[in-house]
């Protein structure tokens, strides 16, 4: 294959060479990639104007600490969304995992954290396998998963909360890094960073994007489509497990419905971050910013004194506006 290839006739074509510019992102593209952060800052500014007390160090610390489970849930599910699927089971799996955690802690002690994360990851993997082997849309698999996990959680917990008596195992989650950063948030950011880094440094990122944009092309290029998808579901499940540990340690108990209401906020966080719900385009960092926006909306609006009915109306309007701002439409041809 060392033979020189091709006659360079094309060099004589006019204008083609002259018109070439440097590649890489343009200024506009750079700005769009920062949009989630801009949205976050804008929201924070608005809340501060509504109530100047909101912008205190303690208040912000509380907000990021609050956001940790949502960040982790959204980050995991982002992988599935990037692959072009969706995981509706994260919240139910997270609830189930809080029950696991509370049930197993007395026997396993500190090891429980790892065991719960592994168990949740395994359950996620089973969903992934069902999706790729049976060729059922991820929406349906995880919708089914959602109700099955809820039922299992109800049954094994006897439909009630289970107290976490031994708090030592999760005490470290309530510490602060450098005095101000809550450990749980630190862990959440660490998860985002590690997963993002692994994606970035290995071919995985291009696999995930190729699958998300065009699964058939990815498959015919010989990329490990099924493996990557199952891995995405596994990580999504494991993240639900980690979020469960955070919630259980925060609430000192596990309960079969504890995280059920986090499903829509988590998906909202992904979309608000600007990740395309159709797959391919997006990142975990975006979901981190999105989760912070959603958390600020959930806690900020009532705290600064917006009445209940208006809070809902504002919440609806602001998340739509946020997505209008963050979504990079040059990457998504058709908005469905």
């Amino acid at each position, binding site marked *: *294959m060392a*033979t020189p*290839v*091709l*006659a*360079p*006739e*094309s060099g*004589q*074509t*006019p*204008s*083609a060479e002259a*018109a*070439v*510019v*440097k*590649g*890489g992102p*343009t200024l506009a593209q750079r700005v769009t990639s920062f949009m989630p952060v801009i949205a976050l800052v804008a929201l924070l500014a608005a809340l501060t104007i509504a109530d100047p007390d909101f912008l205190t160090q303690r208040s912000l610390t509380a907000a990021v600490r609050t956001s940790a489970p949502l960040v982790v849930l959204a980050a995991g599910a982002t992988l599935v969304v990037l692959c072009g699927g969706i995981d509706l089971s994260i919240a139910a799996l997270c609830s189930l995992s809080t029950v696991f955690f509370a049930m197993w802690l007395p026997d396993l002690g500190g090891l429980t954290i790892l065991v719960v994360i592994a168990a949740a990851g395994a359950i996620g993997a089973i969903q992934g396998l069902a999706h790729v082997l049976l060729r059922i849309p991820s929406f349906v698999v995880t919708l089914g998963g959602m109700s099955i996990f809820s039922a299992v959680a109800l049954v094994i917990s006897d439909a009630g909360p289970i107290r976490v008596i031994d708090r030592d195992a999760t005490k470290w989650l309530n510490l602060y890094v450098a005095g101000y950063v809550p450990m749980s948030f630190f862990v959440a950011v660490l998860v985002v960073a590690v997963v993002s880094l692994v994606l970035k*440094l*290995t*071919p995985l990122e*291009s*696999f995930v*994007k*190729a699958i998300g*944009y*065009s699964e*058939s*092309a*990815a*498959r*015919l*290029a*010989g*990329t*490990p489509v099924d493996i990557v998808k199952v891995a995405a579901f596994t990580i999504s499940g494991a993240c639900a497990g980690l979020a469960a540990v955070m919630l259980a340690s925060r609430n000192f108990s596990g309960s079969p419905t504890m995280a059920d209401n986090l499903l829509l906020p988590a998906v909202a966080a992904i979309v608000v971050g600007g990740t395309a719900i159709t797959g*391919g*385009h997006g990142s975990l960092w975006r979901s981190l910013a999105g989760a912070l926006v959603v958390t600020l909306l959930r806690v900020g609006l009532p705290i600064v004194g917006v009445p209940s009915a208006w809070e809902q109306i504002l919440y609806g309007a602001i998340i739509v506006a946020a997505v209008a701002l963050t979504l990079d439409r040059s*990457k998504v*041809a058709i908005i469905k």
Partner: protein
Amino acid sequence: MTTHVQAHPETEAPAPVHALEVRGLVKHYPGVKALDGVDLVVRQNEVLGLAGENGAGKSTLLKALVGLVRPDAGEIWVRGEKVRLRSVVEAADHGIGMVFQEQSLVPNLTAAENIVLGSEGAGVRRGIYRWDTLRKMAQEQLDKIGSHIDPLARTDTLTFAERQMVEIAKVLRIEERTSNPPVIILDEPTSVLESKEIETLFTQVRRLREFASVVFVSHRLDEVLDVCDRVAVLRGGQSVGEMPTADAAPTDLHRLMIGSTGSDDHYHEGMSERSAAEAEPRLVVKGMSGKTFRDVDLEVKAGEIVGIVGVHGSGREDVCRALFGAEPTLAGEVTLDGAKLDLSGTRAAVASGVGYVPAERKIEGMVGPMSVADNMTLTKQKSRCAGPMVIPQKQATLVDKWIERLSIRTPHRGTQIGRLSGGNQQKVVLARWLVAGDIRLLLLDHPTRGLDIGARSEVYRLMRELANSGVATVLLADSLEEAIGMSDRIIVMNDGRATKEVACPSGGKPTPLDLVKEMV
């Protein structure tokens, strides 16, 4: 050809009113000047060919003529009247309609609906469908081109060629919208058609000339010369000349297109080192059966190019896909270099050194929103990785090397592949299998579909080089000529069976007619 019917003989008419005239059209895209001051005249009742390399700006120009591309500067005149076209509807009102390069029918609608889509007229009254009227309207259009398709058939149940006919029937609706003679634009309509269907299409084009003007784009220069009255040539977004087709030869046109004569040895037969004959068989297929093919035997030696020909639905495409593990096989034994070839999936095929270039480039061949570099290195991780890590520098060097070797025209390796012209996209897809240099068997399904003559020549040269380096190649050619020109041996497939093998040595090539006889 020069003596065709002329409504307005070119005498000293005061200012000849052209069907369509374009002056100084300019269109910029980020990083490319797609149109750089194009001038073009389309006369009444003529078939104008538009030629140019991939990325010369043909599609962009034509899309500007139907209001899909908003030019940055320049004028468009329709029958002596300056117009601004802002949408397909406006263009249609001026009598301009287009069949697009990529098929553009709604797959889940009926053929009838597709034909009248956007201009249902009496078929839809106050938002309510009159299915009977609609069917009749569509039937009229289909009758015009002599097609026997059921208008109420769902479009995705039709064959590729039938769909192309529906597209043409659809564009002919223009006649109903304007009293003026229409201008009909056909952007590479033949690249996906078989020779018989192409003949049907040409009959239609000649019929259209009686009352309309036609703009015709094709990379097959013989076709252009055959059906067109005149050819205009674009190069790098500029009009570089035109010529009547009467006495022109492909080489003349070629010269105009790229500024120099192409090689006479189009298929680079001279490069063939003929070592293949003595080589060990590399791919051996025995009695392979699948859903659409049965008992296929096939042998390809290292360094050999074997063409498979057959009509639509002969199953040759599925044979290729089966060998790549992308289509299930029911029976049969396949070995590569003596070892059993794992057909369970595409991963296994890639790992064994098999490569596949699918025909449907846009959907299956490439990932549109991803960069040229990522597309090129998607398959062969070794080419950009050290261990599990991607080394951006390594990837950049390698990709740039292949961009240069294959003359891929792209602003940058980081450009989205979807923004390149079709030909350049195809080169990237081909390069994907070459970057690692460990390919043993290459399955090429219409590898030159949509490529300009220069690019084609480059691909052929590349295929020869690969063959000389020992790669076994299975080729589903774009045309019979191509199959004959490139292959060492040709297998004819009929109804899912390999019915005949034709030797095709350099110097002893069969004629297309010989093959056609075997195919039907």
